[in-house]
């Protein structure tokens, strides 16, 4: 089961604080400069809560779910 939605980062807004990767390591890793690399594909259903949490705690509001 997936949520059908993809997690996206606005690379301009993102400052590389890295909280998202701590909360959601299943979907988010950090590059060598500390910026999030998001695993491609839809967010699996069982990670919905963590995904919501990662979006909420981003101090730059750079994460969002997209359905396109």
């Amino acid at each position, binding site marked *: 089961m997936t949520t059908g939605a993809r997690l996206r980062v606005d690379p*301009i807004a993102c*400052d590389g604080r890295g909280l998202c990767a701590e909360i959601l390591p299943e979907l988010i890793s950090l590059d060598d400069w500390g910026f999030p690399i998001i695993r491609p594909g839809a967010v699996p259903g069982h990670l919905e809560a963590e995904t919501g949490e990662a979006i909420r705690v981003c101090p730059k509001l750079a994460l969002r779910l997209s359905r396109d």
Partner: protein
Amino acid sequence: MRTPDSVQHHGRPAAMRSADRLPRLLPAGFAAGSVSLAEHLARYGPAPAGGLNGPRRAALTEEVGRSGLTGRGGAGFPTARKLAAVAAGHAPVVVANGTEGEPASAKDKVLLARSPHLVLDGAVLAAGLVGARQAVIVAHPSVREIVDDAALERRRAGLDAVRIRVVTGADRFVAGEASAVVHWIERGVPTPTATPPRLSQRGLGGRPTLVQNVETLAHLALIGRYGASWFRAVGTAAEPGTMLVTILGAVREPCVHEIAIGTPVGEVLGLAGGASAPLQALLIGGYFGRWVDASEAAAAPLSAAGLAPLGAGVGAGLIAALPDDACGLAETARVARYLADESAGQCGPCLFGLDAVAGEFQRLAEGRTSSLAMLNRWLGQVDGRGACSHPDGVVRLISSARTVFAAELEQHAQGWCCGIRKAGLLPVPPRRQP
């Protein structure tokens, strides 16, 4: 049977009667200076935008679709689809993009300098087709005055129903990216903005915005006059029409030329007087393009389909010829450093990643201690990770250099370079003070 096309044919001025006669966009002959409005109208006939009512607008938009015109700024997007997307919105605006921030490319500057009215015709027609009342022309600083004069000439003649505003483009590499152009006009900041929203939905002043390269608009002005069949008379069936190319490097007469799409690359070099030295490689497309082996490329048609087997694309219509005695790695390293410095600095992977990539590639090119594994890792980490495609372009350039100059790479790793000529064939502006 009288088709609409044959009707148009009879109304065509003598200079444009045969559809396969080139150049179409640039004035024929060697007279310097820009073409006046009177000369322009004498050559091409009346501007196509007059009296655009609903049915005429729909028919012309369809004609653009049939022409197969695609964007000439590098991305090659079908113009008719862009027109339709913007026309669907409320109170749109048209932007003619003549920023040409790529330092090696000259075709947009040459077009604006020689045929400014053709671009203005196209901008006004595009405005008519999408229902815009304003067209903003963004001109490279070197041709701003010429475009101003042309716009003034038209205003005095009461030619256009659309308000034309001329703006000087920002002289930076990323400034030509569509969202950066809008950002520049609106706020004086020449950096790309985040997507969504798409410019076709919300661009300049929050309005749906059509951003088209100036050459695309010049073609549009001719399609509006003479129709799709005329436009398709040259080029290939899949990629019809002509395109402007900038030819530089080791050729006898570096120049901008108009070619039928699909002309073999070797013939295109011939238009610049041919190679001035034995060639090893060509950079095709621009600084976001790819290196290809010169002998492999010679017979390839200059078109997306013709270059695809070589892994290259037409990009912004640039061919730079690298002679045998130059070092492709050193040239690439200089351009990569320039492109890294030209990052708008907004996205972390582009700002930090390109700097790392350019540094590592520079060490590689100079035969200093470097790590190919690290370079690969970083290329993978920056690809596709910016708001615009700036990092992707650098990845493309470096990847192709690694393939085409693989033998040299080996030599450089052992500390020697076969290049005799000092790097500096590809033009790169002096480094900015940070």
